[in-house]
């Protein structure tokens, strides 16, 4: 079942969160988060809404700012230093719940914009890379359309391709399937599974437990801003230890 949990992992740590805390004003959203992610590791983060799981992964590319503790990504510590933040963001791709494609640009332009303007790659080369990834997400024929003309599932696959065009070392997924119709979830998950199989380091916030069982090396359960339980998928689903985890699992798997 969870054959991947026994996978050999490299010892290289690419993401490190040490005693990280975050507040929104007076509200303590993230409490003492400690997390180490090794190169090639696939992590699924789940938990009830409002538990801080999205906030946590958004801290990793500093879309959210943490107030205490350390976050080190690819050996670079995230502080208010803008240069460091931009360097981290170049290497960390992110997919959002609502895709966030740029509606005024065609699909191809969405994919080539960052490589051309951030990595200074020539247009022809950026377009070749873009077409390569569009083929991988199986929609090369949509290259000249605008995002508004695509279905949700197609848009999310474009969003994944857009991140991949930057050749990131790490991919963050923030509930990539929760805004999709049931028919479209599978096509996005397929792309994510392929990506996982190719050895991409991934952190996914998702409620897709099937995906977690299939690809995760580790499942992290969060509630009220804390990491409650952390285990390999087999043990996580079969013998959860914490009462809160049991309740959550019974609610989402119970029907």
């Amino acid at each position, binding site marked *: 079942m969870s054959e991947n949990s026994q996978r050999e992992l490299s010892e290289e740590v690419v993401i490190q969160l040490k005693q990280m805390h975050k507040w929104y004003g007076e509200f303590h959203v993230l409490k003492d988060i400690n997390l180490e992610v090794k190169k090639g590791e696939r992590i699924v983060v789940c938990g009830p809404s409002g538990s801080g799981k999205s906030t946590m992964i958004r801290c990793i590319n500093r879309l959210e700012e943490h107030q205490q503790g350390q976050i080190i990504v690819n050996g670079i510590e995230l502080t208010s230093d803008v240069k460091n933040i931009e360097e981290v963001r*170049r290497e*960390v791709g992110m997919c959002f719940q609502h895709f966030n494609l740029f509606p005024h640009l065609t699909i191809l332009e969405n994919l080539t914009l960052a490589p051309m303007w951030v990595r200074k790659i020539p247009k022809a080369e950026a377009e070749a890379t873009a077409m390569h990834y569009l083929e991988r997400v199986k929609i090369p024929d949509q290259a000249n359309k*605008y995002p508004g003309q695509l279905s949700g599932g197609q848009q999310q696959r474009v969003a994944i391709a857009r991140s991949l065009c930057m050749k990131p070392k790490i991919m963050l997924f923030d509930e990539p399937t929760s805004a999709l119709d049931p028919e479209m979830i599978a096509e996005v998950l397929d792309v994510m599974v392929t990506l996982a199989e190719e050895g991409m380091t991934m952190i996914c916030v998702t409620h897709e437990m099937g995906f977690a069982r299939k690809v995760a090396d580790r499942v992290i359960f969060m509630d009220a801003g804390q990491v409650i339980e952390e285990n390999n998928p087999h043990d996580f689903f079969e013998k959860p230890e914490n009462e809160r985890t049991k309740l959550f699992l019974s609610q989402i798997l119970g029907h």
Partner: protein
Amino acid sequence: MTEQKYPIGQYPNLPPPKNSVGVVAWLRDSLFSNWFNTLLTILAIYIVIKTIPGLLDWAFFSADWVGTSRDDCSREGACWVFINVWFDQLMYGRFPEDQVWRIQASYIIAIAAAIPLFIPAVSRKIKTALALFLLVLFPIICFYLYYGGSFGLEVVETTLWGGLFLTLVIAVTGIVMSLPLGILLALGRRSNMPVVKSVCIVFIEFWRGIPLITVLFMASVMFPLFVPEELSPDKLIRALIGVTLFSSAYMAEVVRGGLQAIPKGQYEAAAALGLNYWKSMLLIILPQALKMVIPGIVNTFIGLFKDTTLVLIIGLFDLLGMAQLAATNPNWLGFSIEGYVFAALGFFVFCFTMSRYSQSLERRLNTGHRN
């Protein structure tokens, strides 16, 4: 129970019922849909019948078109002779007659350079080059053409500039300068840096809080009291700066409205891809925000175009000013209506053109959904 006409799942696409499409349906839906609308339609027809023939008669059928003095006018209709005689002044003010070719030359250059911008077949590179020419080189050429003083052209003081020409100088300068300035102010007002933010807020609120007449009056009357004459720029330049700063404050608020309408996800997606502040603004946020507020931007442009008439109070005679001046000429007393109608037509042509252009621009830039 009705009989099943088609096999299940194979129902064809039928045409709509006859009376729901076509001219008759349109008439019924838009003009006579209920008793109140019918009443309004009849009332509107009545008003049109009562007013239009008289207006046409005054403006065309009984009007006098040819002649050289007021004696050529029968006064039964409009006296377009008045416009004819004063035409050059209405167009160019008191610009010396033998130098008017300089203005005409600039118009021709502008039109020749602008036309390719509206032809879809012209390549992007040529369009960019022409746009840069119009925005950078052309104003400099215009300055030397209009003011003169070098290249063997005699100096024409700005006090002689007037008519539609002056209206265009003020309006175009104001429009071209106020948009970029307004965008910077709008970005500044949303900045995280407290100093930048407060400077922009104070600037915007100050210029929005005072009437344009005050600005112009200050620029022309108060300014020279504080600044020694040698340092004080030309009256027209002071007016231009006043108009530009004034409308940039309005522009800033229009643009800010657009910036606020962009979903947070767009900023985040740009940031997550590693784009820095200026790149994400220029490539992602502003193209969408500006597109969204085209109606507001053009509204400000149109407002600015018409506000140029206020320069009359500082002794500059724009199109409307010249019309008024001509009507107060002792030989032509009593023809102010023709003057105003002509000025109104002039303004309408430009404002309506801007309005139509903005609508076609909106349609062209529409890429379906906005996120």
